Every structure is written in C-alpha cells, then in structure tokens.
C-alpha cells in the first residue's frame, strides 16, 4: 500500500478582493519507508500541499489518501496515522520541554505512567534530556526544532510531515536534524518534507518533486533528475554585457545566469575547445570556462528557468532569502 497517494490536487483561496490558486495541480506517490522531498521556493505551494495532506486545509479539487485513508472525508483517522511539524505549528514557550512532552503524550491517550516513560524516551531521542526542565523560551532555534520533531513523534506515527524542518538553522543543527530524520526513515517511518535547500533535498530525500507556481515540474531520485538534463554542464563566464549578448548568438541553446552562459552537452570537456574557437573567432572574450556534472541546482534552473536563491547556507533564526512570492 502506498504511504501517500496524491492525485491532481488543487487549492484555491477566494476572498472578496481576488482568487489565488496556491496549488494548481499536484500529483505524486510516496512508498512506505522513504523520504520524499518537495523542493521549491517560498510561495511554490509546498506548505499548502502539506496543509491539505495533514487535514488542516480542505482540498479544492482532486484526491489524496494516506495509507489508503481519504484525507478529505476521514480526517480524524488520518490524524491518528500522521505526525506533523509545520513551519507555523507553535510551541508553548512558557512550559518546559518535559511538560510539553507529557501534555502531548496525555492528549494522545497515554496514561500518566506511560506518559512519563514516553516523555523520557523522547527527550533522549531528540537530545534534550539535560534541558528537559528548562522553559522552552530559553531553547536555541535548533533545540526548538528538535523538540518540535520529538512532539510529532509522540504517538509513533507511520508517516511524518515536516515543513521546512531546518529553515533558519545553522549548518551544525541542520546536520543533527538530518541524521535524526534518516534514522527515523531507517526505522520504517515514511517522511514527507518540504525544503527550499537543494543540498537538503539532495542529502535527505530518496525521491524529490520540484514544485513551482503550484505545479510539480519534475520528479524522481536526485540521480534521475540530474541525468534527465543529459550530459555535462559547460559554464562560460564573461566580463562585459556586450560579450555575453554576442555569445548568446553563438551558443544558441545556452541559459544565461548573471554574467555566465550555461550549456548542457554530451561529453562537455571534449567540446570546450570547439566552443572557445567559435567564440574567439566572433571576437568574444571569455574570462573563464568549466565543465561539470549537473547538480540539482542545474536541474532546478533547467525546469523552472531560474535559480533557487534559498539554496545557500542558512543563518540561525533568520530564514534564508528567497524569491519572496510568499503565499
């Protein structure tokens, strides 16, 4: 049985002023025990998709099921099966980590003795035992994310939804969380995560769906997506706008990225001398040239036509800059 089956779901928000199609047409399937990444910029529709799958938003059109249970009509049964850590699910800062775990255990139906036992287990699992009796407001961003992850695991869910789990974390905290997510996958938990970090998708996800403007524009494993570009990426750099404009007439299949032109060809290294000769003959000065295997970054550029700006290293507590089409 599929862990998640999403068929042509749409989400439209209608207000007096206007109508916004946050998710236009999204379909994907997730096998049990895999990590599935939804990669895209802010406003692409990732979070809206997750909110629909976690029963927190209604689905305007299409069908979605979790372990064969219909998301729209059987939301209570779906909630029993899933763990959720969303960007905007909050943590009560006035309580301690231990109190939060205990309260959440009790709400999930554990009795007091079992709640104490489970609280202890989860505090150890997310490495917060020493900070257990401190109020959450004293926790760092990384500790709060680990607490959030732990709270979503209280009832041992079969499927875990993580919405941008590492946004705003420093690289060290991110890596700790990645290891924990991989460990969960290894214990059989299916993880669906959204991210705007290419490195995160590449490192964590068994399969990736690139989502842009409410549509899935590419899907596959990281290697499949890279292979879909075909061949190598040759990058030419130029000093002047005039050179780059003229070079575009020579390299007609190229994609411009600032002062660079990128072209995807088979056996790139062997073709560099020929391209350089053509450019030099046309009186164009090339400042540097290189050939490389395609990255996820190249895939993103290829399928969306722009680069994912949020892919750089994030800074603790400060969300990384993105294209700013917040939705």
């Amino acid at each position, binding site marked *: 049985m599929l862990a998640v089956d999403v068929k042509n779901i749409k989400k439209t*928000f209608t207000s007096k002023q206007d109508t916004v199609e946050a998710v236009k047409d999204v379909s994907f399937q997730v096998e049990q025990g895999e990590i599935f990444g939804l990669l895209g910029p802010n406003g692409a529709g990732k979070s809206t998709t997750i909110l629909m799958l*976690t*029963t*927190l*938003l*209604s689905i305007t059109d299409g069908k979605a099921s979790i372990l064969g249970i219909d998301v729209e009509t059987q939301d*209570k049964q779906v*909630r*029993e099966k*899933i763990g*959720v850590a*969303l960007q*905007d*699910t*909050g*943590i*009560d*800062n*006035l*309580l301690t980590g231990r*109190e939060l775990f205990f*309260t959440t255990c*009790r*709400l*999930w*139906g*554990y009795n007091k003795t*079992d709640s104490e036992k489970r609280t202890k287990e989860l505090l150890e699992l997310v490495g917060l035992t020493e900070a257990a009796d401190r*109020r959450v407001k004293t926790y760092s961003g990384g500790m709060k994310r680990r607490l959030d992850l732990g*709270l979503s695991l209280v*009832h041992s869910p079969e499927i875990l939804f993580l919405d941008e789990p590492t946004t705003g974390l420093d690289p060290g905290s991110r890596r700790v969380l990645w290891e924990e997510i991989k460990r969960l996958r290894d214990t059989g938990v299916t993880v669906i995560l959204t991210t705007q970090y290419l490195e995160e998708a590449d490192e964590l996800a068994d399969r990736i769906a690139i989502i842009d403007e409410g549509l899935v524009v590419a899907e596959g494993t990281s290697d499949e997506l890279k292979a879909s570009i075909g061949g190598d990426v040759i990058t030419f750099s130029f000093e002047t706008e005039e050179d780059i404009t003229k070079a575009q007439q020579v390299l007609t299949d190229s994609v411009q990225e600032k002062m660079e032109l990128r072209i995807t060809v088979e056996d790139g290294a062997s073709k560099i001398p020929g391209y350089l000769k053509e450019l030099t003959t046309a009186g164009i000065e090339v400042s540097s040239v290189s050939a490389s295997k395609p990255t996820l970054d190249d895939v993103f550029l290829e399928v969306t036509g722009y680069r994912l700006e949020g892919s750089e290293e994030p800074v603790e507590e400060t969300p990384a800059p993105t294209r700013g089409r917040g939705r």
Partner: protein
Amino acid sequence: MESNRSFLTQLQILTKRLVLRVIRRPLAELPNIFISAFFLFVYDGALGGVFGGSAQGTPFDFANGNFVNFILPVSIVSASVSGGASGIYLVEDIESGVFKRYQSMPISKWAIILAPMLVGALRVLLQAGLIMVIGKIIGADPAVGAVGYFMVLSIAFLWGMGFAGYSVAAGVRSGSSQGAQAASFLFFPALFLAPTFVPREALRGWLATASAYNPTTYVIESMRAIMVDGWVTDVISKGYIAAGSFAAITLTFAVISAGKATEKA
C-alpha cells in the same frame, strides 16, 4: 494507548496547560486585582466617612451604616472582568501556532476552545474571591449571612463568563490579542453608567435612563441587596438573570465565532 480520549479528559489536560501558563506569568494577574482592590480602598476611604456609620439616621444612609458592604460589589464586578483573559489565551494559542498543533491531532476542537474559557472562569473566581477576602478583612458583613459571600461570588462568576465569551468572540473575529483585550474597554462604560456610588434613585437625567438599560446595574443592585438589605429576592434574582443572560448570549456568540474561525479553509 487509547486512541480516543474522552472530551472531558482532553478539556482537563488542555485546561491544566493553560493554568500552568497563568502560574508562569503571575505579574499578568496583578493589574486587575490591584485596580479592583484600589476601587475598594479608595471609594471606602473617600466616601465611607460620609455614607458610612455617620450617615445613620440621615437620607444618605443607603449603606445601612456599613459602606464597605455597599461598595464591595463594585470591586467584585471589576474583578470579574478578569474573565476577559479567556480570549487572550485563545488568541495567543492561535497566533503562536499552538492551536494548529492541536488541530493536527485527533482531539476535539471544542476542548481546545473551551479550555481558555474554563481558565477564565477560574481566574474570575480567584480574583473575585480575593477581593471578597479583602472586603471581609476591612469590615464587609453580608446582610443575608455568610452564604452571601458565595451568592455574590456566583453572580460574579456568571458576569465574568459573560466577559469571557465577549473576549473570545472579539479575539477570534479580530484575530489578535488586542481584539480580545477590547473586552476590558467595555467594562468602564458598563461600570460607570450604573449606580456605582449611590443607589439608582439618587441618579438624575440621562444617567438614570442609561443605568436602567445597563445590565451591570442589576448585577450591582443584586449584590448590594445580598450585602446591605438581606433577602430581597426580586432584586437578587434580577442580578442572576442579568448576569446569566449576559453569559449565555456572549458564550453562544463566542462558540459560533470560534467555530467559524477554526473551520478548515
């Protein structure tokens, strides 16, 4: 593990969490207690000399010689406004995303909404009870006997729940804790367009008319009957009816508003 807990157990767990929050912010409780106690001391100090024991045998003897009994209901009504914190608790949870976390779990939405109202009710009982203890210390003595304290507290509870309902409705409709705090702004006209310092018969002109339409009037008069006059059942029952109706109307409004605001978009 039971997958489905009872509504009451969920309500109890969520209420306990909010009580912990209240305990962790003791300073947030002080302003309302301070204002209520301030009313009691200042009004007794300023007016007790004129309308208290020395007024016996004069036309101004409406306090039956004990002005604390007469003015205590004003402070109790002031303390009961603390029920307005209910809306703030709920909106804080919505703003912080805690509400969404609970919504993603298989627990009752109504338990999430009613827990802050219940904490508001406990807050009313605590604050009104404290003011009553202060009143007792400085000389309050209900005309109906010790049961009068519980009667006054029960009216205060209903009145406070009315403010709780109003603040929850205002909070979820405005979507901000400022909206919930608006409940306290209703309090001042409600308190002062009423026979706050003298009996209604002594009010004149527009204020006499306004006070007749103000439910606070009947709540204060009911408490005063208990404290000053004794078993004047028609006056006492009007207070229960006014406070109970206020609570029923605003709580219904709150439940409808909160239900709509938390529906799936």
